[in-house]
């Protein structure tokens, strides 16, 4: 939480509010801060800003604070907030949009989550489908946390729950083509 004074007039970024509204198709001004999203959100206890505060920060145009927050990355899109919002705001959609913008503008406070997502997508780009073991190993390498979930290894392998080799689909270059369309967007960490 910032303890310093927020100079609303100076720091309010109205173009940011507009951008989020446009990309998410939601009107942030509908929110009247009832707190239902925060109340229902399973991740509130792990967030740096609870969802309702994110909504408030959005109304106040506090771009920096929002895009630097960890909350937008920890949201798992469980849709509880969206389901219970009395103002019919698709809050999960807004969180998603904020994540997309943060990625695009190189604010990533939860590098590991992003890294995992990237690894996942790389795998499917490569094979057309996701090669779970590959994803796990590559993520461990990239993140330097070599033994993440190592304890699970035996469990899954002994039960033949996981393939040792990727399945490559015929149309994988088509899938790759889809990805290439989005490559143009900056994806590198700051």
């Amino acid at each position, binding site marked *: 939480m910032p303890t310093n004074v927020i100079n609303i007039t100076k720091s309010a970024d109205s173009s940011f509010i507009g951008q989020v509204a446009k990309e998410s198709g939601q009107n942030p001004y509908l929110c009247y801060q009832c707190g239902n999203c925060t109340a229902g959100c399973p991740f509130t206890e792990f967030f740096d800003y609870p969802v309702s505060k994110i909504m408030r920060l959005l109304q106040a145009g506090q771009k920096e604070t929002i895009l630097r927050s960890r909350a937008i990355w920890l949201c798992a899109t469980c849709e509880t907030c*969206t389901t219970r919002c009395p103002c019919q705001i698709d809050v999960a959609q807004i969180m998603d949009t904020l994540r997309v913008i943060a990625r695009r503008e190189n604010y990533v406070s939860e590098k590991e989550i992003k890294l995992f997502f990237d690894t996942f997508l790389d795998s499917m780009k490569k094979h057309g489908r996701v090669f779970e073991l590959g994803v796990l190993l590559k993520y461990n390498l990239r993140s330097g946390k070599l033994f993440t979930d190592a304890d*699970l290894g035996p469990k899954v392998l002994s039960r033949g729950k996981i393939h040792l080799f990727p399945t490559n689909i015929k149309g994988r270059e088509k899938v790759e083509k889809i990805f290439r369309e989005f490559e143009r967007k900056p994806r590198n960490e700051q």
Partner: protein
Amino acid sequence: MNNKRYAYYSGCSLESTAKEYNDSLKEIFKVLGVEIEEPDDWSCCGSTPAHTVDPLLACALGARNLSLIEKMGLETVIAPCPSCFAVLKRAHLKMKKDPEMRERINELIDEPYNLRVSPKSALQILYEDIPPEKISEMAVYEIPELKVVPYYGCIVTRPKEVAEFDDPENPISMDRILESAGITVLDFPFKTECCGAAFGVVKRDVVNKLSSKVLSMAKEVGANCVAVCCPLCQQNLDLRQDQINSLMKTDFKIPVLYFSQLLGLVFGISPDKLGINKLVVSAQWIVDSLKKAEKRGKKIKEEPEAEEEQ
């Protein structure tokens, strides 16, 4: 109804970590006469990661598969994995709502998608297309000791604009399906609480903590088994149950089965075909306590004496 053919989009998880979901579903579909056909050369739906990069990308990845299915000439596709289901359904709805979006996406994918497919979850098919009598008729075994809590997870029924099925707050489809198979289902307040979803690898502690809430509530209401319909939920509750126990200092030993596995068991399908052995927390006792169901009639409890008649 029975001779209706469905497309079947298994998705990546059901090919590996959730193999038992895949197998058991196909088994019970056989029994219930649900004919399925898998699209050739389907690709991954992109799941959560895709829409954190770009909603358009997520939509395109979904649309590619939808167009494959459309070519098969089948109007309904079963997507057992809620995550796949959500992606496919969202893609379908978005393209339906926004013709301009449809344009852009159809440019991206090889074959255009013309909105002729309706994606449904496995639950929805069993709940809406299969008469409950059919299910009870096929349930030739019973498991008296079994007390199940149905755990639906987040996105099978949420948000209701996308799922267009069951109640987002208190879904009952899985309850009813299992009940009609003569399985005892307990009222479960945490049917739709989140287990931590895709963060298993990255934020293990978060996921373990959230999943433990679900398990302890299951224990609270006196359940000895959790029924699920989502690979991620199953992973987080079953595969990670030891992690949970060591982190939260608990001693859960609750088998977490796919609802299709439970159905399979009472249908009398062999446990191996249902991949019971693939479960991390053993469900052997359930298998052992299977017994032939004599006259199911006894099960239907007769009207309680109206207390006014005293």
